[in-house]
């Protein structure tokens, strides 16, 4: 399966585009997405201060609500990655 990850904040370092497509095993949940993300970062983006991103980020479903690690992902689902925030 594949999900579309909408990038915000520091996660934008992962791609020049707004959305990153990530391949996952079928029936994956957010926990699996964190693992996949961690692998992508350690392969390509270690020098970009993103080492903690897979642990510290929250994820929003299409309903714009935080989903927990057990949330089951659907094929082609659009998920937003929410790195630690700091407006104002």
């Amino acid at each position, binding site marked *: 399966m594949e999900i579309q990850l909408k990038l915000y904040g520091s996660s934008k370092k992962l791609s020049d585009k707004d959305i990153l497509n990530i391949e996952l095993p079928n029936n994956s949940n957010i926990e699996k997405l964190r693992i996949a993300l961690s692998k992508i970062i350690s392969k390509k983006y270690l020098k970009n201060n993103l080492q903690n991103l897979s642990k510290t980020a929250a994820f929003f479903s299409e309903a714009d609500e935080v989903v927990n690690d057990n949330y089951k992902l659907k094929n082609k689902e659009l998920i937003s990655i*929410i790195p630690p*925030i700091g407006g104002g």
Partner: protein
Amino acid sequence: MTLHTALVKTEEEKISSEEAKKFILSEKNGAESIFIGRVRNENSGKKVTAVTYDVHDKAVIKSFQSICNDAKSKFDKSASIFLEHAKGYVPVGEISILIAVSSGHRDEAFKICRYILEEIKHKSPIWKKEHYIEGNEEWLPGHSLRPKEEIK
């Protein structure tokens, strides 16, 4: 109408304190408190030229409305609140956030203003990228929205 919340695309318009003052004006409310946050030229010893604000539009507006309504319930139901935050590239000296509150009395007006600002920092999905005089840039660290019990 006693509540206005918006994200302001800085390439197209600017946050206006005059507009805010007009919005909160009310004969019922004798106290007004206005907080203006501007981009400053230094952070942690680095010379800053601008900040780019990235936002999750829908979730930010939802959080702004929820925070402002909470503030009214907590401190003064008759308060009028105007809240705008910048979205996009903001040079040093320009406004990044404006919170204007009118309330029955000064204590509530100050408290609502402070409450909204602190809650935004912990609840609204907004990110800052600082641009430095040397030409480099950096996303700033922040507060994680991941449920605490999940972070090992």
